[in-house]
């Protein structure tokens, strides 16, 4: 009987980035609690959430860092990129300025994460189609040009929220399978033991892939 100490085999660290008010915290909340927070205050700092998901039969624990979007915190939030296996880059489809800033967010992400980090572009608030300011097509084109995964989602209705988080995990898992993501590379933020402090260090591979507790 295998006695893996954890019920999950991996820990993936995600960061959520993007301009203020695009709905980063709501996306996190929708993903972890399956609820929409209607009057979500601005994040002053970095929120933290966790959920265990399953990819290809592997239990994966997501540790999600939801960063403050305000420009004045930009320098500080840059500290949180390091070792992220996934980056969810969010803009608001009803506010073009948030879309226009994407290239600057992307630059930060590319500079501060490692090449295997999966970047997923989310056009949030797609429930507000009437107020749309950015078309799906142009965002899709931007994503394609930059090699990003992309969906439009709604933290309010929950549409595509689950998908964005799961697809990112699938892609990361694939990278591990392909050997593109080196679990032992220090700069990939990989460590073999989850830190007690809730994993400021990112992507963790638990060597003994734990077996389902009940064989049935």
């Amino acid at each position: 009987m295998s006695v893996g100490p954890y019920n999950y085999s991996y820990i993936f660290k995600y960061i959520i980035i993007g301009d203020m008010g695009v709905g980063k915290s709501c996306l996190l909340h929708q993903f972890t609690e399956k609820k929409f927070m209607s009057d979500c205050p601005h994040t002053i700092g970095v929120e933290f959430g966790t959920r265990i998901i399953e990819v290809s039969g592997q239990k994966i624990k997501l540790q999600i860092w939801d960063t403050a979007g305000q420009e004045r915190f930009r320098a500080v939030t840059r500290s949180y990129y390091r070792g992220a296996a996934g980056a969810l880059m969010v803009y608001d489809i009803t506010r073009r300025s948030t879309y226009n800033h994407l290239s600057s967010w992307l630059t930060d992400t590319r500079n501060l994460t490692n090449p295997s980090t999966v970047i997923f572009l989310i056009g949030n608030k797609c429930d507000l189609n009437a107020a749309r300011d950015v078309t799906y097509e142009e965002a899709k084109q931007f994503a394609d040009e930059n090699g990003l995964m992309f969906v439009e989602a709604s933290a309010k209705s929950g549409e595509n929220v689950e998908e964005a988080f799961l697809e990112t995990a699938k892609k990361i898992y694939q990278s591990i399978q392909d050997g593109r993501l080196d679990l032992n590379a220090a700069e990939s933020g990989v460590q073999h033991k989850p830190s007690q402090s809730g994993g400021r260090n990112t992507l963790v591979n638990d060597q003994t892939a734990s077996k389902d507790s009940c064989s049935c």
Partner: protein
Amino acid sequence: MSSNQDLIGIIQAKLSSGETASSCHEASLMQGWVRASRILALVEHENEWALFIFISSRMPPEVFTDLAIERVIPVDSDFKCEIDAGEQSGDVYVNISSRKLKLLFEMIPGIKTNNFVSEIMRSMEALMKLRGPPPEFQWLHKYSGSTSNRNSADCDPAPVDAADVDVTKGAKTVAEKMLDIDSPDIVVPRQSIAQGATPIAARESVIRYQMSMKEDDYTFTETLRVFIGTWNVNGLPPNASLSPWLASDMEPPDLYAVGFQELDLSKEAFLFNDTPREEEWRKAVIAGLHPAAKYRQVALVRLVGMMLILLVQEKHEKHVRNVAWETVGTGIMGKMGNKGGVGIRVEIHNTSICFVNSHLAAHVEEFERRNQDYHDICSRLSFSKFVPTKCIKDHDQVYWLGDLNYRITEMEPRIVRDLISHNSLSALLECDQLNRQRQHKNVFDGYREGPITFKPTYKYDPGTDDWDSSEKNRAPAWCDRILWRGDGMEQKEYRSHPILRTSDHKPVSALFESQIRVIDVVKYRKVHEEVMKKLDKLENEFLPQVTVDNTEIIFDIVRFLEPQSQELIIANTGQVPVDFEFIKKLDDSKYCKEWLNIDPAASSIKPGEKCDVKLELFVDKKSASKLNSGEDKLYDILVLHLDGGKDIFITVTGNYERSCFGSSLEALVHISVPVREIPIGKLVELENVREAPGGMEPYPIPKEIWFLVDHLYRHGLKKQNLFLLTGLHSELIAIRNWLDNGSSEPLPGSLYSIAEALLLLLESTAEPIVPFNLHSVCLGAATNYLQCKQIIMQLPEFRRNVFLYLCFFLQELLSHANENGLDAKTLATVFGAIFLRDPPRVSARGRVNPAVMDRKKASFVYHFLVNDLSDYVMSKSLHLSGTS
């Protein structure tokens, strides 16, 4: 910290006389969804052991009144202890169970845990070795309030009883108390969390524990018809169909466990454990199975003459897992295979079943040997392929069959036969050794046997139904028996099959309808998912949470050397204790800028409580110059990190009022008015533009230095201990204001304060008078006046001016040494440290003993205090006599 010995002493004080705490340990008990501290102790009383679980009002307990007994679990035959030590988890999980009660403890790995667990194991082994009736644990009755599980575990010793249902029920309530999974909202005892209990983490052992507590929700029971047969064949080969024995029921059984004894009495079989009979009888069994179903052989095990064969209906085959078999010899020399037992264990769906076929010691008077053989088999039959190894008792259901060889005693064979012929079996059953020994709990404790309605199965003349006619004229006996132990097992038939006359024994069989727990895969997944989700939810809910009363700390006007403070209130609004800490940002060397001090910078807060953090802003000589030049601002983002949780950004801002303190000499010589009268932009420009701006002719030295020195020159030459005694803070502030704002009043403050202000002014600059790049050159030249002189001559103009001006002044002071008591060496030491201030980061490699450095700096300055300086080319206005 109390040592283990102290702890044992405290526990001992809690116990009655005659009870000895032999070992104890701290552990965390998993209670539903939280874990809480407990103290475990293994307590002995006259060779009976029990595990005591204590709650302590403080950890570690200091007196015995701190302890309350939560539960007492007797180390009896139901007691189990399993260890789960994940390689990487850093924790050891110990499962303690007793019937339906399951407790999961988390222990810190290490020698203490190892010792404690091995003590438990030792007590269990001691129980196994115990002969005679099992312990009764009378001494635990006084703790009965804490032993609700004990009452249910203590089942009726009567051979047949229906108390089983109640037992399950009783234990169930205990089990349910431990787990609140069904309640819609997780009821988590906030109080206990506040006292240090923590929510359980999502770990493998915890999930397994949670799943096992929920077993009823994802399993259903299926009835399995189990046929158990036993026959001592007296070494003879099969000579008739076994169908009358094996296929005597209408419906085909789902499972057969058929045991033989004395399969082969030959020397070869005994010595080499090899016999053709095995295959002959195996074939006979297969040929005799119920014709209405197809069977597959699961396992066959044989030791000399004892053979056990297990078969299941084809349709069940795929649900049979983890098959293992073992043999134990208890015959000649206590280990040969002429007597003993063989066992097969399997798991069918989610139920573990063990079958034991034994042949116990022969001879009428040897019942104690038989008891002994039983105990030997119990302790020695272990399935070693499992880790930890599984014993007979570790199974949900046990069937024990065989030629147990117990006889009818204290009765003439003639009378026995007579009673049998009159069908008066009950009188005989009272004299049955097995029944008697079981009543005394000397053997088969916890097992049950169905009522015997058939005639004794021993001893017949082979080939007949006649009682033994040999000289020995043995009394008939029920040698061949079938017993069972476990929940949900119901015996439907218990009979012998006299029609089979091959042997001097008649075969016996029993038919059971046993409840097998089957996992509903869909439900299992659902429950598993629920458990996982709950753990997820818990993990998020029990993330540390705080609120801070203010994330933007604004200091209004901040002045040099005037500390200000504000309070930040961090309130723990979450459900768990929080450890917070202000952490460094990327590339920063400290968690806050040098002008800020945070107290405490790290601490713990219990739920519902708060912590006042004092933020003190203080611009001193180290930080002033950067704020003056604009290199730094009174702006910082602090990262308040919660251990295991989120980060909160606290912005600290303030308005710094620039001062001459912290301004460079180069800037000051270009300012003819008080610093405060210059617009900030102009000041920053002066600090950053290196070449002389046009406009005014710069002063040879900063006027601020001149004001201070001039005052000292005129009023302080005779003052004792000038530069050695410190001034008053309030006077320093007044002097600062006088310099920065300008005033027609005389310079305020005592001479000591003015002297200190002068030193402070020189110390607050970004660079000392001798720039950092000349620092080491100066130290190297310290012994050579000429070299020192050269260096000074090469200094930039304003610096040279200030240096020489101050040296002139110091020489003037020294010329009044009679009155002021100063000496050149002391002043050289004071000003050496100021003129040759150490660069901010002296590399570790080049670091010299600081005392040596200080001596060198002093000797550098000393030259200029004792030598005639009149040959220096100097601006005439610098002469001290030439006052404005």
